[in-house]
């Protein structure tokens, strides 16, 4: 898998032509729409209740004239090891659809945010027992003011046990009402 970084805009005349050609993507074809739907329906390997579409990490699916399919994925956290499994799962699904040449590239910009998780994704997280991330209200990346609701009993009387939990994207909390510990998909 390749991480693509944008070429600096002042890189010279050779890069300018390439950038200009790239900046006008053609409209999505019906096949691309179908491939995008297939890739987006792949479940997240660590949170299988969510699809990659609902998680908001699928950035684009492009079918080139050569028949090669290029899929753009963005990682939740820079070091998230799940992205390699995501890429392999997408390749498998698209191979099964008959696409022989599939490449998955990771893109970093714009950076993924928990605001990219869809409303349906948030609902599924809560149902699964993980408190969904709160929407960003200001520019601060570590909001602490609003309380996190317990996904088990609905109480807002919860406390932070650890800023880091089973994966980088979650914090560990405990509910003071039902006493159950739970994971919170923390805001990024």
């Amino acid at each position: 898998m390749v991480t693509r970084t944008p070429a600096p805009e002042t890189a010279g005349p050779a890069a300018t032509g390439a950038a200009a050609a790239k900046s006008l993507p053609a409209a999505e074809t019906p096949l691309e729409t179908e491939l995008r739907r297939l890739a987006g329906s792949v479940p997240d390997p660590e949170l299988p209740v969510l699809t990659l579409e609902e998680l908001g990490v699928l950035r684009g699916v492009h079918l080139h004239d050569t028949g090669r399919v290029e899929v753009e994925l963005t990682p939740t956290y820079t070091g998230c090891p799940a992205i390699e499994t995501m890429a392999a799962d997408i390749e498998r699904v698209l191979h099964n659809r008959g696409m022989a040449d599939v490449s998955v590239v990771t893109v970093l910009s714009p950076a993924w945010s928990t605001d990219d998780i869809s409303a349906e994704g948030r609902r599924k997280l809560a149902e699964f027992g993980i408190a969904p991330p709160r929407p960003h209200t200001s520019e601060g990346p570590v909001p602490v003011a609003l309380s996190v609701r317990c996904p088990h009993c609905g109480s807002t009387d919860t406390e932070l046990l650890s800023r880091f939990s089973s994966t980088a994207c979650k914090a560990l909390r405990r509910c003071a009402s039902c006493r159950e510990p739970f994971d919170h998909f923390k805001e990024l």
Partner: protein
Amino acid sequence: MTGPSAATGAAHAAALALGDDALVLSHRLGEWAGHAPVLEEEVALANIALDLLGQARVLLGLAGDEDELAYLREERDFRNLQLVEQPNGDFAHTIARQLYFSVYQRLLYERLAAGDGELAALAAKAVKEVAYHQDHAEHWTLRLGDGTPESHERMQRACQTLWRYTGEMFQPVEGLDVDWQALRDTWLSATADVLGRATLTMPTGPQSGAWSAGAGRQGLHTEPFGRMLAEMQHLHRSHPGASW
């Protein structure tokens, strides 16, 4: 300097310096696995290490082949700060190192993210992760500094011991367009603010040793770094091409 172009060479030098910071600190934090005081901290330090390793992979990928750079370079070819290679020490030492570095990394990456250099995309992503690292270090600094007499004394000692490695953070890095003096001023006031709230006193004394002429960024490292590298690189060097 010979290379494809001066700009590319400088950008690679910057990616190497920041990538080595992230890689080396990631490895040090990984050493806590199985040894942290409580399970939650074990998980927290491993998660911070994972974030840093992800950043290191992107940065070293910009500078060349990530595996070759991580596993096949000699000590003198690493460009990381001496601060990040310092041994974990007791938990207070690890927290002091985290505080000094995470405040620096956040301030630096905020500036890089606002620019349009090659590292802007990575910096914009990483700065959000680093905000959590800083938050973690701050909370532990407050707990230890404003805790028991024993924890206060050990946290104060850790801050003092690591102080002489902090000056190097503000020496210009080739390829980074940053106002280093302003960065240093902001870092000093942010650090003083946390230490003050933790009832700790700001360390005194020089921020670098007389023998450290820029040190880490020029490839000069402290003695424990060689042992760390030997362990980090042993498997790859003994069994080239080994995989799971």
